[in-house]
């Protein structure tokens, strides 16, 4: 259940108190009777429906009853800002960095292992960054960032391990870091299929970014 900051009440309230009211900043022409057919069709029906930054209206129906606007990331449902009706549309570049922060960050391949470790110490992990809270930055005059935004900007929580990993020197690796978006399939590469099996040996002296090579198990091998 979303928590939405009502700019009139000045506090975050649960989604149950609100009603979504469509895309924001769609102006009703002051000379509406002169509008062309195309413009009127766009006014009635055409909506952006962005994946990412969305400008939308909400009404605090079971609260103060006021309509207001919000900027939300439609991928993470994170609200960046809410502002009163009539205030100007905030510039998208204000939120670009925050949106990018939740995109997947490339993970370099982990260290090659020999036999599976019996008692791994701290298993060598690729540096994994935790997305810092979106930096909303200072408030431009006239716009009010919700309190939660301010609190987040102060407290950048990150688990100890990830922070320690971040302190590691950057590896020099010629190969491109592999994408980590595990839910997307990328175009097929021409590769010899290998039997998936246990990670078997390759010398650790190889460049760390190199993929682990698994020896194909073929009939006839001793």
């Amino acid at each position, binding site marked *: *259940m*979303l*928590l939405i900051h009502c700019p009139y009440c000045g506090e975050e309230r649960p989604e149950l108190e609100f009603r979504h009211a469509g895309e924001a900043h769609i102006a*009703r022409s002051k000379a*509406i*009777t002169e*509008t062309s057919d195309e413009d*009127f069709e766009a006014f*009635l029906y055409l909506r952006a429906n962005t994946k990412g930054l969305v400008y939308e209206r909400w*009404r605090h129906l079971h609260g103060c009853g*006021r*309509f207001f606007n919000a900027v939300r990331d439609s991928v993470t449902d994170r609200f960046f800002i809410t502002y009163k*009706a*009539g205030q100007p549309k905030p510039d998208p570049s204000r939120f670009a960095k925050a949106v990018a922060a939740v995109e*997947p*960050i490339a*993970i370099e391949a*982990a260290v*090659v*292992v020999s*036999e*599976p*470790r*019996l*008692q*791994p*110490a*701290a*298993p*060598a*992990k690729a540096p*994994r*960054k*935790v*997305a810092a*809270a979106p930096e909303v930055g200072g408030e431009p005059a006239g716009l009010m960032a919700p309190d939660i935004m301010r609190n987040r900007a102060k*407290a950048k*929580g990150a*688990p*100890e391990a990830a922070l320690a990993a971040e302190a590691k020197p950057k590896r020099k690796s010629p190969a491109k870091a592999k*994408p*980590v*978006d*595990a*839910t997307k*399939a990328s175009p*097929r*590469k021409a*590769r*010899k*299929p290998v*039997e*998936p*099996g*246990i*990670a078997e040996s390759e010398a650790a002296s190889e460049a760390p970014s190199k*993929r682990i090579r698994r020896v194909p*198990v073929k*009939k*006839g091998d001793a």
Partner: protein
Amino acid sequence: MAESHRIAGAGRLIGARPLHFTFDGEPHTGLEGDTLASALLANGVHLVGRSFKYHRPRGILSAGAEEPNALVGIHRDEARRTPNVRATVQEVYDGLSAVSQNRWPSLAFDVGAINNLASPFFSAGFYYKTFMWPKAAWAKLYEPNIRSAAGLGVAPHKPDPDHYSSRFAHCDVLVVGGGAAGLAAALSAAENGARVILCDEQANFGGAMRYESGARIDGLEGWHWTQDTARRLSEMDGVTLLTRTTAFGYYAQNFVGLVERVSEHLAAPGDQPRERLWQVRAKRVVLATGSIERHMVFADNDRPGIMLASAARTYLNHYGVGVGRAVGVYTANESAYRAAIDLKNAGVDLRVIVDLRDNPAGAVIDEAKGLGIEILPGRAVTAVGGSLRVRSITVQPKTGEGTGRQIAVDALLMSAGWTPSVHLFSQSRGKVAFEAGTQRFVPGTYAQDCVSVGSCNGTDDLAAAIREALAAGERAAKAAGRSGTARLAVKVEASESWSAGMVGTGPGAGKDTKVKAFVDFQNDVTAKDIRQAVREGMRSIEHVKRFTTNGMATDQGKTSNLHGLAIAAEMLGKDIPEVGLTTFRAPYTPVTYGAIVNHARGKLFDPTRTTPIHGWEERHGAVFEDVGQWKRARYYPQAGEDMHAAVNRECHTVRQAAGLFDASTLGKIEVAGPDAATFMELLYTNQWQKLEPGRCRYGIMLREDGFIYDDGVVGRLAHDRFHVTTTTGGAARVLNHMEDYLQTEFPDLSVWLTSVSEQWAVIAVQGPKSREIIAPLVDGIDISDAEMPHMSVREGRICGVPTRLFRMSFTGERGFEVNVPADYGEAVWEALWAEGQKHCACAYGTEAMHVLRAEKGYIIVGQDTDGTVTPSDAGLDWAVGKKKTDFVGIRGLKRTDLVAPGRRQLVGLRTKDPKTVLEEGAQIVADPKQAVPMKMIGHVTSAYWSENCGRSIALAVIEDGRDRMGQTLHVPMPSTTIEVEVCDAVFFDQNGERLHG
């Protein structure tokens, strides 16, 4: 022999109370603290079910919520018969009755097993390719048989008599998972001043310490340290401990759903709710959800007796049960060796450990060798003997050389490695990252204020996990605004840690084989099914999943996802992360409807709205209908009357004498302010500026696209005050529509809107005697025709209380609508009723109201309109102010389609046979003999028997309706075609004289 496999002195249930339960009618004994699975295994029972598709005999695979096979029905009584309960989760209580599922006539002899023989016809995706011909066979043959064969359990046939509880909870830190890491995080957060909720799905905290025997923390054995820490937490203020509680869903902004099984494990639940839903909003969430062991993928790996190694360890170390007497192990990592060692030390014959790796080495392997366990490295299990129970395994070298060696076993433990539980992390919209070295997905990029600790984060070493958890708990407390200064230190003296393993098929079940090597047990998905999917063109893992249904059963792929992914990746020639992981969805494990629906059942499903006059209506025998959430009197049957008789009498009486009607449900909005008339002009099609105070007008409200949205009579009380009425169902949305325009389009107007729907009770007094009825009661208003003509409003008093009296009519008779403050509604009604009795007036309901207005051709928005009707279509063009420069809908009305010829227009219909009443919604055609599909030129919107007209009447919308007056058209019905004549929509009193008395 009772509990033949309970090992004396083993486990933690020593000295527990014995209890009795039945499985498929067979009586057994168990101990308090047993799950059904552990109790069955204690009694040597492995066969517990038949698989979904192939009806293969199945046993218990695991010791936890990831169980895919051991689904049983639990029957408490006639009404409480719960299907698909995991035997590994259900705790045994005295008198528990459990039944196996999906088998007939019995578990041991199941006719459905024929599916196994016919399995070539049931390969992956078979339902896309079969049961298609002949087409006619679908409804009578295929569908009924598929329905009765499908599914696993049997749904209960009585309503659920249990009640469920629900609460919201807020905390600083929610810790999900009460193993070593979760307990450490909770302790650290609590010591730093945070309000903590810690939940675990098991009956006890402890996590992996239930089975790990080699851990030593702060001088205590692992399990004891967890119990001690839980006790410490229970003594702290601000800490809520929840066991038997599953966090099933991670929603936006750290809103997490938990379900607590309150009384499922009790023999006599008494008054307690069955389950409790917790809706938790946490400032910070710590995920300590651990890892789930994977099975090995090899031919016939689903036989009863073949289970996960850690499960066997749990049954031994926690429940004191030996899962077999001649146990084998098949593995690719070390954790299974520990299971073998524990069993051997407990006196179980450990026949062999088959290790897929060529050169396993290390302390635990040495220990196993030292105990005399035979270890066969570089070998694979390529075949399994036995059907209702595993009887033997065939072991072959990995390379495939040589004949296999058969080893007799009655249980086989397997471990292919451990998969971190990233379900909740993934639900939180975090993105997982793939660790190539360990071939697993771990949390990568977070989307919410949460952190993962322990093995679910890929931190396998116990000391590192606890350090990580302590730090996370402290950090979470601080981030939640707590200022504690506690920095905890916990000393791990000994631990077990496992990483590595394998994914995908082993030798013998690889690409060129056709064996049934199960990947997803619950949906009967084998490795060859997944390979077939790729061969048939599925490239994306999403398609492979849906084509094969791998990971789509109630266990959501907990043991099968990674294997399926690896097999698909191998076929596609891609790396695992390139193929991708499917999305994890809430709930983590199945959640009952009871927990979700909770109190919102029966009368509490929806609020019931009643008018102030409801009591009188009830006492006078009204039959009610639901109009939205309102209860409205539909008709008042007198002795011996059915609905038609009652409605006919009511309609007749209203036009002969008078009738009283409760119109309180209609919406009422007060529009007040200097710009009130300007605002009304913008929101309605009508002219309002020149309407005199004291007069009324019928207003039409459009949407911006030009279609009718609502209507209602509006009274102008003063220059700056309008009393606006709306339809009953439209009240809220009309006010919302008005507020939207006022706040965001015309904010400069000085006008305020107030909903007064519930503030005014409305009594319509309609009929020739209406004035005589109200006259003795009204005070301060001249209600003569001259001073109060039709469509006027006056303020005064009635029965001594204030009233807004409207002279208006929805029946076409002279009539009034008496508005009084709601609290006086019933009393004023009673007074009017008493007067009405003197004139033989009746009470009439919504049904008669519908008929009377239809006799006059008055539309009902939402009945005769459907959101695609313009004022002109409805014959209401006169209500649109032609000289107006702007109103909502003005531009929409000019759209080409809305002004084009051929639009459906409102007309009346007279059936050729006056006794035939048309069906509302019936289609109208010009030529009844044309071929199907016919050209439909309109439909019937309202149809009634009219007692006053002595015949049936109907309203309809028909293309160019107004040009068709007198035309004969046809209404095709299933059994006959009805002839109709197009006529004027007004059937009674065409000139409208009766309105004016």
